[in-house]
């Protein structure tokens, strides 16, 4: 009883703390456009999301230096969702209703996105979500600038199956126990079965958030890999758990030449926390790597490091996604001549902006974007060396074509369909389930 009241008091205190934080840029003026930044600056996810908050501040500062948008300066409104998802919904509501922001850039985890979705729908505002996710969703008010499974997971598996990738025949799907790995692995499992992989050649393993004792699982992976067929690990392990996982791999001598691990959630930022010498050759699949050699990328890295004041800071895929999302939003606002949500939603579809890998990111009618897919091998300096990439840009697919329950669904937010889950078999809006 006492404990419970103590808990709610704590929550209230945390809430009060973040409310006061949001009031920091208090120089509200009438001739500014407000942009909400909804990331965790404390708690478990702070490790990944703090950088994204800085990225947004960086992008806004750059845009203001260029004269803002439609002659108005942009004004960032930062809130800390403290890795607490009900709080995220509260703060999203506050950003839209109290601070009256015109667009929100934020969230990292899928549970955060799912928590704030109803708020954006109800209040008809805009959310730009910058992280790779499990798909099976398309919402009118949300723009998915990260990868959907067909832009990351499926190409990575294709690569490993190819001769270049080692002709892998046996698969370990290891993930953290929550919605993104679960859905991704469901899609991957179905995809592998369709490709003729036997069910006994697939091992699926889930671990809790922040799992730090990987001894048993790594030794299981070694045993599973000793069946005489080339084995690979597809890792959707998220966040903090990766460092102990890779450490254990290195210590138990799982070499990339024998059992390569391809990760979907490990980027330059995560690798900056440890010595990558034992990991050389393990893989990651993303749509951007800091090591990509293009003039756009070199300029972005130089500007970012100048902004943050450190030559050691790395760039990563979700940062690029935020950059693309932000530029698309700016273009859409300028095209629509207003920041009104409905006008921007109509204007943004079909707009294009250059990405950092030398291609063009285009906003599709399903609110996903086109991206290249890159496979990189970890190097001893914590960077990735691109060993394979798709020839063309891959359009993001909201509903997986490999799951029976979603393969007939399409998302299209343009007239006349204007529906997030349009059933192409029955020609109606809404899933058949």
């Amino acid at each position, binding site marked *: 009883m006492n404990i419970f009241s103590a808990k709610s008091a704590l929550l209230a205190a945390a809430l009060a703390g973040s409310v006061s934080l949001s009031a920091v840029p208090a120089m509200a003026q009438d001739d500014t456009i407000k942009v909400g930044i909804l990331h965790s600056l404390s708690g*478990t996810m702070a*490790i990944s999301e*703090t950088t994204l908050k800085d990225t947004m501040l960086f992008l806004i500062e750059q845009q203001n230096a260029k004269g803002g948008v439609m002659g108005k300066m942009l004004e960032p409104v930062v809130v800390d969702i403290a890795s607490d998802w009900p709080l995220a919904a509260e703060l999203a509501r506050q950003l839209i209703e109290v601070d009256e922001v015109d667009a929100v850039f934020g969230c990292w985890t899928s549970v955060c996105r799912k928590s704030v979705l109803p708020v954006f729908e109800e209040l008809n505002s805009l959310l730009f979500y910058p992280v790779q996710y499990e798909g099976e969703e398309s919402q009118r008010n949300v723009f998915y600038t990260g990868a959907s499974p067909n832009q990351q997971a499926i190409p990575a598996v294709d690569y490993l199956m190819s001769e270049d990738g080692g002709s892998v025949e046996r698969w370990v799907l290891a993930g953290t126990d929550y919605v993104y790995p679960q859905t991704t692995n469901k899609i991957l499992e179905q995809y592998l079965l369709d490709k003729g992989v036997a069910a006994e050649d697939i091992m699926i*393993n889930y671990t809790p958030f922040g799992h730090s004792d990987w*001894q048993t699982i790594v030794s299981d992976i070694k*045993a599973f890999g*000793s069946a005489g067929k080339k084995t690979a690990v597809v890792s959707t392990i998220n966040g903090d758990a990766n460092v102990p996982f890779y450490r254990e791999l290195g210590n138990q001598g799982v070499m990339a030449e024998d059992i390569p691990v391809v990760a979907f959630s490990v980027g330059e930022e995560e690798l900056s926390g440890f010595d990558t010498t034992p990991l050389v050759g393990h893989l990651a699949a993303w749509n951007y790597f800091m090591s990509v050699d293009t003039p756009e990328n070199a300029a972005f890295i130089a500007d970012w490091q100048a902004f943050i004041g450190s030559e050691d800071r790395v760039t990563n895929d979700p940062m690029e996604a935020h950059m693309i999302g932000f530029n698309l939003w700016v273009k859409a606002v300028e095209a629509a001549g207003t920041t009104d949500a409905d006008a921007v939603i109509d204007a943004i579809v079909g707009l294009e902006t250059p990405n950092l890998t030398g291609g063009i990111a285009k906003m599709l009618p399903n609110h996903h974007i086109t991206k290249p897919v890159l496979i990189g091998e970890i190097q001893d300096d914590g960077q990735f060396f691109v060993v394979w990439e798709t020839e063309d840009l891959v359009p993001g697919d909201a509903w997986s074509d490999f799951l029976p329950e979603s393969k007939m669904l399409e998302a299209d937010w343009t007239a006349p369909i204007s529906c997030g889950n349009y059933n192409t078999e029955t020609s109606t809006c809404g899933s058949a389930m």
Partner: protein
Amino acid sequence: MLTNLLRVVLLILSLLLPSNALRAQDTPIDIPAGIAAMGEASLKELGQLVTDLAATGDSAVVPALTALGAGTLYFEETSGAVLIERGSSYLNPITGEAVELGADADLSKIRVNNGLRRDIAAALAGMTLMSDNPATRLTAANGFLAKPDPANIPLLDEAIAAETDANVLKAMQTARAVTILGDDEASIEERQAAVPLVTAGAGRGAITILNGARNSAPAELQPAIEAALAGLEQERAVWGALQNVWFGISLGSVLLLAAIGLAITFGVMGVINMAHGEMVMLGAYTTFMVQLIIRQNFPGLIDYSLLIALPAAFLVTGAIGVGIERGIIRWLYGRPLETLLATWGLSLILQQTVRSIFGPTNQMVIAPTWMSGSTEFYGLSITYGRFWIVIFALIVFFMLLMILNRTPLGLQMRAVTQNRRMASAMGIRTPFVDAMTFGLGSGIAGLAGVALTQIDNISPNLGQNYIIDSFMVVVFGGVGNLWGTLVGALTLGVANKFLEPYAGAVLGKILILVLIILFIQRRPRGLFALKGRAVEQ
């Protein structure tokens, strides 16, 4: 001097390798041109170059290929030269002479992928099998093992005949057996004879090799492979159970380290210290700082940085602990709920402070060489890092036991916690003892932080992951009893590891929690309950 020596060695090597030279192609690639072409080759072209260069059989390509595989081969864009990095100097890949770099030198590493690394190892194996250095010969033999090719059998036979080192000989024979096993042109008798050699020689890799051979072997060969596999699988099952016990002990020792400081502050003093995990985290950051200073100023000591960090972490976190006790906790004795809230708030403050100072990203503590890698102990695979943590946890435990039972301070601590007023009446400065006890508990949490840098993230959240487990261990083991903490930690570790293969990591954790709740229902005071009057307070 050194380069001359290298050249002589290379010359000898090339004389020693007639069999390789004989296998050279009709139109061998020009070696200097081939190596120079590596600079701007794509991955595919690089693969072709490696094959061509290896086909020359000329030992002059060995240094360049070795460097390419190890990632120390560089391309200098201004002059178009390919160079080998050694320390801070760059060598010509053929002559081995140091090359002076111009001021406008633009070096970039020539990168390879997994497949290419494997090819390079196999190509090098053929050329270094006759090396004078046993370690090089061993690597070469293992290279053959990783990529068996029947064409190598004559070379292996020759090497086996000349080999004097028992270890290398065994590796070569195993490599030969593996090659024969997979050679469709060898006779069935020969291949059957190879099975026991593989079983005996290839260690933990034998199951992989035999499984691979079974997939493609003719029917006559199947029974021999099946029999060998059945034996190996059975052996693995037995060792698997023991391996699980070791994993459990290792997990238990981590729990013990994290919980043992709490056994003092919570178990002995009765303070619900929610900031305990942050003391662990601060210990880890102290280690990081110590290593940073050592790396910048005394690079030679880097292997001992963890040992140097131990007293530093103890003193830093101990001092902070004394500060917390004097500043906050002493005003809240006897009010557990307020203590809980205050220390919980404190833990948030400490986390955010560290986050503001060091940033939210992980920091890096390099593992010293004596803590990296693993060893095979019969059928067990033991990683050095985990091994030293088990030893360290036990040392900390017994030292703490000594302090509590054999020193005047320990006596005073026990006296104060058992009967504060009586102790005070006997002339013990109870506030001083309180501060020291809390400082000791916090300092030990700092020591745990040093050890955890080797297995977990060094991030502001580090402590949060351990606080619940720590309370679980202390409550399960019996509040106020150090031996209970030891037994509790090891029991939970081993139980966790035995549940994990069957129930999975997530369900395993839930089951452990349920079991503890049931256990506490039966025995509210834990495994080793304190008896006597002290309990009644």
